[in-house]
């Protein structure tokens, strides 16, 4: 039995099919990348899995339980955490307090929530920033705080929406290390939406590619990088050439099966 199973998930907004019959499954403690051009429906897929959007049709099974109809807060309770792509760092809660909010999901005690938050901040090497407001931090630190907040709820599955966007190379290395740590050492299954290819290709065990709401490919990074449909839809010829993954034959095949 797969840990998370998404079956023929479809989400429409009026006439727009943002997610078109997507199916995939993942095993415990996997680390999956989700890529695709802008507007491909990646974030919508996250929103559906997390219960932020009601799905139009299809089923979501998490850890053997049908969770299709559950609301977002119930999903968090079950162990699905997420971060948001756009997060306006407002409010008067400090970093420690923000992480405590998540920790309060499983306890009423303030001291326990505090201990839990301190453990997570220490684990992500954010402990020194505990007393700052999120708005006072640089973007790279904000992104890791957002991850820490989601970890507060003790998720078993964590959905990360573009945590590396807008970061420079050393910062990406840093957040990549954090993600690997969360996945390997804390045993959290991770799905990652990301446009930064150097990161997705390096960190993911498997990659799922969306385009126009539909899944067009799925497989290990090195296979995805050579996949003609993915190159066409998203990676582009230049990426393929630079990384030496272009396969002349598949390009020709590809031209025959143009949509």
């Amino acid at each position, binding site marked *: 039995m797969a840990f998370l199973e998404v079956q023929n998930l479809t989400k429409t907004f009026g006439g727009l099919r943002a997610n078109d019959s997507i199916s995939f499954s993942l095993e415990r403690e996997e680390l999956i990348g989700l890529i695709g051009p802008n507007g491909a429906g990646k974030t919508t897929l996250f929103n559906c899995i*997390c219960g*932020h959007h009601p799905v139009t049709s299809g089923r979501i099974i998490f850890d053997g339980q049908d969770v299709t109809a559950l*609301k*977002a*807060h119930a999903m*968090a*309770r079950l162990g699905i*955490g*997420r*971060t*948001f792509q756009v*997060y*306006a760092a*407002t*409010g*008067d*809660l400090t970093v420690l*307090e*923000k992480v*405590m*909010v*998540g920790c*309060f*999901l499983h*306890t*009423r*005690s*303030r*001291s326990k*929530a505090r201990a839990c938050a301190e453990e997570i901040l220490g684990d992500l090497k954010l402990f020194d920033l505990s007393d700052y*407001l999120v708005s006072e931090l640089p973007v790279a630190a904000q992104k890791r705080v957002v991850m820490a*907040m*989601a970890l*507060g*709820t003790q998720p078993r599955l964590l959905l990360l929406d573009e945590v590396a966007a807008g970061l420079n190379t050393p910062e990406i290395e840093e957040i990549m290390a954090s993600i690997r740590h969360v996945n390997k050492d804390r045993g959290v299954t991770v799905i990652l939406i990301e446009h930064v290819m150097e990161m997705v290709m390096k960190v993911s065990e498997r990659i799922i590619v969306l385009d126009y709401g539909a899944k067009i490919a799925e497989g290990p990074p090195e296979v995805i990088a050579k996949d003609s449909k993915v190159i066409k839809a998203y990676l582009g010829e230049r990426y393929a050439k630079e990384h030496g993954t272009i396969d002349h034959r598949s390009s020709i095949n590809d031209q025959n099966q143009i949509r």
Partner: protein
Amino acid sequence: METLKNAVDFSDFPRIDLVIAGAVAFLFLIFPLFSASSFAMATMIQFFMFSLYGMGWNTIGGYGGQVDLGKAQYVGIGAYTTAVMLLRWDIPFWVSMPVGMGIAVIWSFIIGYPLFRLKGHYFAIATIATSLVLKDLFTVWSFVGAARGLEISPITYPPPDYMRLIFKEDIYYYYLILGFFFLGLLYMNWFRKSRLGFQLRCIKDNEDMARSLGINVHWAKIKTYAIATAFVSMVGSFHVCYIKVIEPVDIMSLDLSILIALMAMLGGAGSLWGPIIGAGVLIPLRSYLKEWLGAAAGLVGIDLIFYALIIMIVSAFEPRGIWGIVEKVRRRKRR
């Protein structure tokens, strides 16, 4: 046990705050010994009542960020319950106050459930509407005295009646409301550090984020609204024992709702001291401006102009109120 510890633990405030707060609390305790006029005494009692109203508002309006402009309906429910029970069945305050709180909380669930489907300004307008509807119902309901309202002042004053809270001298009311004030403050100190308090502050920040952290946003708001309601209704019960006359147009008016919200916002919504500071500025100002400029110089309504001015200044410079300014300065100093 931890609850109690959190309620009396103010250690996250800088020492200077605690020294000031302690000094002010001491002044409150000895104030009646030096009080020259009954006018000053009445102003102080008003100040405590409005601080408590503001604290109640601050739970949902300040920490939760849901601007509620209908608190007067709950003042009314508390006040009417106490007055009606006293006049009709001679039931003492200590029974009617919790009954009033119960009725107010039930009413808050009934209107809170649909109202919290609304957001922002729409929520604020809806709270005004429910409050006005309830006021109009009370204006025509003869059981509670309709538009003429109720009067509970006795013809002759018996010796101090602690059960019904009928006192001739203000000093009894003063110490009683002071006790409520300290209890309210401890409760708020606990609340802001409680799970619900944290969840609300997160909701105010970003509702989608709150949901993803496992918070049932709608239910958290309803629960907090009920807490705010219980607070306000409790003080409403006291209010009627103190002023002894209630009319729906007065006790359930939009003016009162707005005044409650304004005080908390002026002092600093979403902070522990905010409602107290707000009441401390506005209530004396209101009383004395009315007395000196209104009654003495014939400038009726001048007090309104003054506090409109203060509100404009505060909202232009720091929307988080007077306490927001203090915190801003402190943060800047720390860096």
